[in-house]
């Protein structure tokens, strides 16, 4: 899906570490914080490791593979920008590394969604500046 100037949906409102997260996505790299003290992965970004208390961390690259944790299917648009999108499904994917994130699946219809369905990251360059991590079915 090529980026387009006509992209109408809201873009992420970013600053600080969320801007860094999306900058990696622009390079088609899905990266999350990983504690360099104890190795625990985390998302959304935090200052500290909640497990060991370390302030030291790195942006570690995810395999991009995961499974479907839950979903909803929006039928009534709650923002005007999404009026042409319904029905669409904001899903939660659990990555192999254990972190979970909100995303869309690009190739699964709402009535085909199943808990635990294997998926893999599929980057969508929605504008020249912004790439959203989305997911597709995987084997």
């Amino acid at each position, binding site marked *: 899906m090529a980026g387009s100037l006509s992209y109408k949906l809201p*873009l*992420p*409102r970013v600053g600080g570490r969320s801007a860094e997260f999306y900058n990696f996505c622009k390079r088609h790299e899905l990266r999350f914080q990983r504690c360099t003290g104890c190795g625990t992965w985390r998302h959304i970004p935090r200052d500290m490791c909640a497990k060991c208390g370390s302030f030291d961390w790195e942006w570690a690259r995810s395999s991009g593979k995961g499974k479907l944790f839950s979903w*909803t299917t929006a039928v009534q648009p709650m923002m005007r920008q999404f009026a042409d999108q319904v029905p669409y499904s904001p899903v939660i994917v659990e990555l192999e590394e254990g972190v979970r994130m909100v995303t869309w699946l690009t190739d699964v219809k709402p009535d085909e969604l199943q808990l635990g369905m294997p998926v893999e990251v599929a980057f969508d360059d929605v504008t020249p500046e912004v790439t959203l991590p989305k997911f597709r079915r995987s084997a």
Partner: protein
Amino acid sequence: MYSLKDQGCIVGVGESAFSRGSGKTELGLMLEASVNAINDAGLKPHDIDGIIGPPLGATAEHFAANLGIEDLRYATTVHMGGASPVVSLQSAAMAVASGVATNVLIPCGWNGYSSNPVRGGGARVDTGERPMPSQNPLANTIGAYYLPYGATVPVQWYAWLAIRHMKLYGTPFESMGAIAVAERKHAQLNDKAMMRGRPLSMDDYLASRMVSFPFRLYDCCLETDAACAIVVTAADRAKDLKQPPVYISGVAEGHPYPADDIPARPDPFVIGLTFAAPKAFAMAGVTHKDIDFAEVYDCFTYVVMLQLEAMGFCKRGEVKDFVTGGRIELGGELPINTHGGLHSEAHVWGTNHIVEAARQLRHQCGARQVKDAEVGLVTGWGDFGDGGLAILRR
């Protein structure tokens, strides 16, 4: 071990008119409710010396300036969304038990219909750039990580929990419908209820349009222009006031972990109330069997079910059986939302649930009175699952 058991009492309750189109400011609605609650207690506005302001719409100081309270000794705000009013009871009990304040006012309300703050960009008015109140502590999470995927409002976030529960435990639509139907039935006995005169059957529920799967229209609460207010006083003074005192016997707050992101929770069914409930029950010294009725925060039907499991009224996955067969209706084992709740009375951030619980325990509820009610509970839920629980007795 601390205990606030029976140290604070609800001595006054009041509300504004409930409407779709108040023509008033939110502060104006809340002041109307406040004056009614103060009058109900037999107090004067100048007797109030503590105010726990609402999470939105006005500050404690706005109330003091209007009510003429020169010496406001205690002012705070609980930022827990729809859990704020119930958790404010904890703060009020602490204030009167310690002597920091004598009479604490808890006002809350909004123009939930007219200003259309939740469904921004929906049918009525386009406020699409403000999917959540701007000062909401969750705005960063939503803006950076949920907004691009169109997950901007509670009906979508809490659906993530409901779907997972349905798939893991076989929870059927009809069990969610049982909540909506029971609440609507109760509202037929409540003159103030927005949905009085509009009964709802299970067939009506199942036929209603989908909003965000698995939530249909009748899984969702109302949007109302409405306010309520509560007055809390120390137990030793409460006996001398106009109304029979309603004791705050057990009260606690709880926060899910982490509170600011639903997907990251190790167990998504562990919510604020999971932490609050054991503390409040222990403080009150009662068990589930002692509870005569429950006013449970009901932004969505499934959220009631989630809270019943979190409080331990049934085991996880068993709530589908708990809520059916009339158990949660008036005359049943545990009547829930005897006023109609946010679904069928009005959406007043659950402050109306506290008002109803107090009136049930005063035995002032007429046709919907729970017979011989001695002990009841009120829950709050908000901001991704923050929770509060108050166990009240007469």
